[in-house]
């Protein structure tokens, strides 16, 4: 039976080629993702091993709270005097304080380097004299020696066209500083730590500019020869004050690697989702291809049965064929994975995610996962066609009747489909609305089940849908129109399965598009309803740092400006949950940001006070004067008094502080944004010119009007949307290949009919038109179903988020219309090859072949 299966496989190799291609593409994407992320992980792991290789132990403040997967543990600083105290501890060979904070270099052309708001961070720190503790190596120049000197990383030097001897600006806390570059450094074997930009100053300069005078972020130690890391940590513990801890170098390395591992893991999951989508779409294609070939081989299978083959043998022959297709295409996909990894790296680079280079890692896990997924999908998709093949009666050898999947499908099928649909929707809603720790998996599962349910119901839905979609065709296109419509309706099961692949793609594209459009609409409404000023200055530093508060002070002195108020943002744990806590000047901010105060007084927002959003206050039964526990990384646990309850959380978040409370609890003071309201008498043009004249001293900060601010805030959304579209493109291509493949197989099946049509007077172009329109009907069917599902998904997604923030649900009609048109065009494209082949059909051979 194995030989029969393989022979039939070879005989139909051209027909199975497109099928195999679907598996190959999906598997190569999956393997590519794994290769890329393994490579990145290993590069980072190697980097940290290298960086901490000389560190025996680290002394640091105990974690105040955990800021989540991306921020990690948040801790305060340690006193610089501790360094001297530790020097005397038994087993200590070397001690160095370490400083790491926000700093951003300015390039030769005056533009700030890097994009800390969306890309790799920009750091400032201290130059470490100890060779064993310094993770940087000088490749040019010398270390900084005075307060106006620094060394910078090689990548920043290259990006910013900076060389040793240049004097450039560096953005730090306080006013921007002019610094002489005395040296260029590398980080281990790479030009910069994972794409981050680094400026290193002398110890005291670093303390002043990026941290806090008299403090270190941590202290690194080297053990004397013969003292283990563990022993050193034991010795240190006795000498440490309260709330300070000592950990081994190994521990620190592991923590850094784990954190990177978590980030890479999130990224891997994100990418694998698309690989799974591609395989899912491919599975419909495999199912279709096997269904059609099995139908075409009815007579052959009947003959096998008549000659004594058992059902099980026929079944396993089809499954063996699937196994062989799955194996070969998975192996090819695996090999292509390396190229895909390079392509993905480029794609991510194009949207601003730079990954460090490193030797390709081809782990055994990659091979196993790719093969299991590829072969598994192929075989599982072939099970139902194989069962059908095994049910062929021996008598079919005589008639060779081709089973057709006409009609609406059985009542049982409809019931099962509806039940599955309900389950999928329930899982989706539970994932979105239930308070789950990690809802992604259950949401994904729910979405997949919904797609399958619609695929099951597809056959029932397909017939009326084809009828409606193609209704104008006979009038528009005459005989080819009539035939295209009837052909699409001839085998609803096949049409539905073919359309399902595209449905999944369009469903995802649709929901993401709606989600993005809603997010943009939300941004617009937030800005419109809460921002009553004229300009916004964006520091461009994201949450990592910001612009010198001096900017706002200077703006307030301008005659063209009525008021300018900075918004500071810092991470804190409020009543158990981590939030970005804003700080504003209550005297100035309320003219520009409308938070709709309800109770209490803004003038009461003092050192120990906090403002709470009314819904949160209601949830937690808080009233004016109540106390909330807040943990800051710098000042530890505090108890703040509710001084204001407000009705709009759109710009301010669920909690915010008055400036005096913010300054009391955060060491570093940066404005993330500065909100500006122009003086009543000043023209907008004059005001913006005046503001820009001041802002030019703060590179990286951009002056935006309302519209520009909306656009800039929406930019990450657009970027993500672009990335998702690019990644989904693969699945779309597979879906289109599927349509082409199904058409090609159908045409093969209809050879005689096509011959008849040609004989009685159908021209080649009419024949091509018939096939093209059938393809368009299938494509539109998938698109319409996909859009419906996409709108539903988009709506649930927005609704789920709505519980936390007032979001707007917005359907981007123009974009969705473009999707429909593109789908129709794609349908035409998918039909090109099959239509050409059909048109070249020898009329006579088709007619005579009786």
């Amino acid at each position, binding site marked *: 039976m194995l030989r029969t299966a393989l022979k039939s496989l070879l005989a139909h190799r051209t027909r199975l080629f497109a099928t195999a291609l679907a598996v190959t593409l999906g598997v190569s994407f999956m393997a590519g993702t794994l290769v890329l992320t393994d490579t990145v992980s290993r590069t980072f792991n190697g980097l940290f091993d290298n960086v901490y290789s000389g560190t025996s132990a680290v002394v640091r403040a105990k974690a105040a709270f955990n800021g989540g997967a991306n921020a990690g543990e948040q801790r305060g600083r340690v006193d610089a005097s501790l360094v001297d105290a530790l020097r005397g501890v038994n087993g200590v060979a070397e001690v160095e304080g370490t400083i790491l904070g926000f700093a951003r270099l300015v390039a030769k052309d005056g533009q700030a380097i890097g994009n800390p708001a969306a890309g790799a961070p920009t750091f400032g720190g201290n130059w470490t004299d100890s060779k064993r503790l310094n993770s940087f190596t000088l490749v040019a120049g010398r270390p900084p020696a005075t307060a106006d000197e620094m060394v910078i990383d090689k990548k920043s030097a290259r990006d910013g066209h900076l060389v040793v001897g240049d004097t450039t600006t560096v953005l730090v806390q306080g006013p921007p500083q002019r610094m002489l570059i005395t040296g260029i450094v590398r980080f281990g074997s790479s030009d910069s730590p994972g794409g981050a930009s680094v400026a290193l100053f002398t110890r005291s300069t670093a303390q002043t500019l990026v941290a806090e005078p008299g403090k270190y972020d941590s202290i690194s130690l080297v053990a004397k020869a013969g003292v283990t890391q563990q022993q050193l940590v034991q010795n240190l513990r006795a000498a440490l004050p309260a709330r300070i801890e000592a950990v081994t170098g190994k521990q620190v390395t592991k923590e850094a690697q784990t954190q990177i591992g978590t980030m890479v893991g999130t990224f891997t999951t994100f990418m694998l989702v698309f690989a799974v989508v591609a395989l899912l779409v491919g599975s419909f294609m495999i199912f279709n291809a096997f269904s059609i070939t099995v139908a075409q081989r009815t007579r052959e299978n009947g003959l096998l049965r008549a000659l004594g083959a058992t059902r099980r043998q026929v079944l396993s022959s089809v499954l063996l064929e699937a196994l062989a297709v799955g194996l070969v295409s998975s192996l090819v996909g695996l090999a292509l994975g390396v190229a895909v990894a390079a392509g993905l790296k480029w794609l991510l680079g194009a949207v601003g995610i730079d990954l460090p280079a490193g030797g390709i890692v081809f782990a055994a896990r990659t091979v196993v996962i790719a093969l299991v997924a590829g072969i598994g999908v192929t075989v599982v998709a072939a099970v139902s066609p194989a069962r059908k093949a095994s049910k062929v009666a021996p008598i079919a050898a005589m008639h060779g009747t081709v089973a057709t999947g006409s009609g609406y499908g059985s009542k049982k099928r409809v019931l099962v489909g509806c039940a599955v649909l309900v389950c999928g929707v329930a899982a989706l809603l539970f994932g979105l609305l239930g308070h789950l720790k990690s809802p992604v998996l259950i949401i994904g599962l729910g979405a997949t089940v919904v797609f399958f349910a619609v695929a099951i119901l597809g056959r029932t839905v397909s017939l009326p849908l084809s009828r409606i979609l193609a209704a104008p065709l006979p009038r528009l296109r*005459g005989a080819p129109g009539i035939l295209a419509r009837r052909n699409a309706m001839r085998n609803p099961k096949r049409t539905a399965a073919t359309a399902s692949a595209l449905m999944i793609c369009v469903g995802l594209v649709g929901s993401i598009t709606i989600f993005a459009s809603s997010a943009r609409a939300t941004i617009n409404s937030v800005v419109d309803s809460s921002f009553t000023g004229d300009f916004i200055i964006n520091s461009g530093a994201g949450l990592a740092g910001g612009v010198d508060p001096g900017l706002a002070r200077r703006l307030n002195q301008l005659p063209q400006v009525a008021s300018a108020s900075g918004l500071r943002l810092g991470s804190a744990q409020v009543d158990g949950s981590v939030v970005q806590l804003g700080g504003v000047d209550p005297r100035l901010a309320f003219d520009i940001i409308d938070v709709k105060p309800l109770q209490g007084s803004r003038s009461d927002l003092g050192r120990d006070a906090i403002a709470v959003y009314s819904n949160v206050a209601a949830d937690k039964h808080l009233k004016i004067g109540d106390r909330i526990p807040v943990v800051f990384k710098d000042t530890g646990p505090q108890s703040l008094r509710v001084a204001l309850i407000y009705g709009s959380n759109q710009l301010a978040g669920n909690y915010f502080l008055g400036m005096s409370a913010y300054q009391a609890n955060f060491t570093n003071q940066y404005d993330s944004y500065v909100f500006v309201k122009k003086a009543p008498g000043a023209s907008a043009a004059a005001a913006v010119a005046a503001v820009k004249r001041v802002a030019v001293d703060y590179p990286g900060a951009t002056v935006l009007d309302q519209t520009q601010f909306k656009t800039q805030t929406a930019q990450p959304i657009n970027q993500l949307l672009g990335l998702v579209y690019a990644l989904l493109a693969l699945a779309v291509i597979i879906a289109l290949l599927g349509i082409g493949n199904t058409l090609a197989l159908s045409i093969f099946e209809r050879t005689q*009919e096509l011959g008849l*049509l040609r004989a*009685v007077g159908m021209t080649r172009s009419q024949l091509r038109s018939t096939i093209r329109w059938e393809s368009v009907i299938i494509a539109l069917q998938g698109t319409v179903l996909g859009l419906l599902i996409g709108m539903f998904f988009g709506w649930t997604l927005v609704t789920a988020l709505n519980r936390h923030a007032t979001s707007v649900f917005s359907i981007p009609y123009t974009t969705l219309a473009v999707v429909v048109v593109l789908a129709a065009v794609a349908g035409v494209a998918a039909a090109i090859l099959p239509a050409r082949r059909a048109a070249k059909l020898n009329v006579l051979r088709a007619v005579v072949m*009786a």
Partner: protein
Amino acid sequence: MTVLVTEERVLTEPAFAPAARTVDATKIYGKDQTEVRALDGVTVEFARGAMTAIMGPSGSGKSTLLHCIAGLDTLTAGQAFIGDADLSTLGDNALTILRRDHVGFVFQAYNLVTTLTADENIRLPLLLAGKKGDTAWIAKVVDTLGIADRLQHHPSELSGGQQQRVAVARALASKPEIIFADEPTGNLDSRAGAEVLGFMRRAVDDMSQTIVMVTHDPVAASHADRIVFLADGKIVDEMYHPTAALVLERMKRFGD
């Protein structure tokens, strides 16, 4: 004009140009050693308003001749004409349009498009041409063939005989110059076959149509006005006013 068909209808008047003819038609398959001459210089005319049958043993070239005159296949040498049109000068598109507008076809099987109703199948060449056609004529044809109550049915809902009658109706629908039938009764039982042949006869007698039919069945051939006998790609004989017995007799001699 040398060929006489039935004395009553077609005489030697030059005005009655043949509906189709071939001049020295030659069709060669393969090359050199494997060369097969399916048609070997066939010159034949098919008169208007008559039914002609082409007969001959298997491999005699009768189907090839039909396909080549009908514009379904091309000759290696010589010429084939439908009306005045020299088929060898026409490209695929022109040939297709010629078949659509001037030729009717009845095949042995797979005559109908399964997704179209009987009515749509009948009007298929007109639909393809984007024409409405002569509705009164089509109504008459449908009526004559006795399928008026079957027009909205799909082929799968029709019997074999009914399907062939629909095929005959389609062949007649556009009032073609000539109708080619390739074993039109080959898949039918004798009663249904006789019915279909009866209708074809009436199409010639009452509706002045021209039919050329390939068959191996002496009974079917006996419905024709004239029979052309082919053997080894050449015309070897012809017969007017055939009867089944005479045809059988003639066919037996091919076995020698």
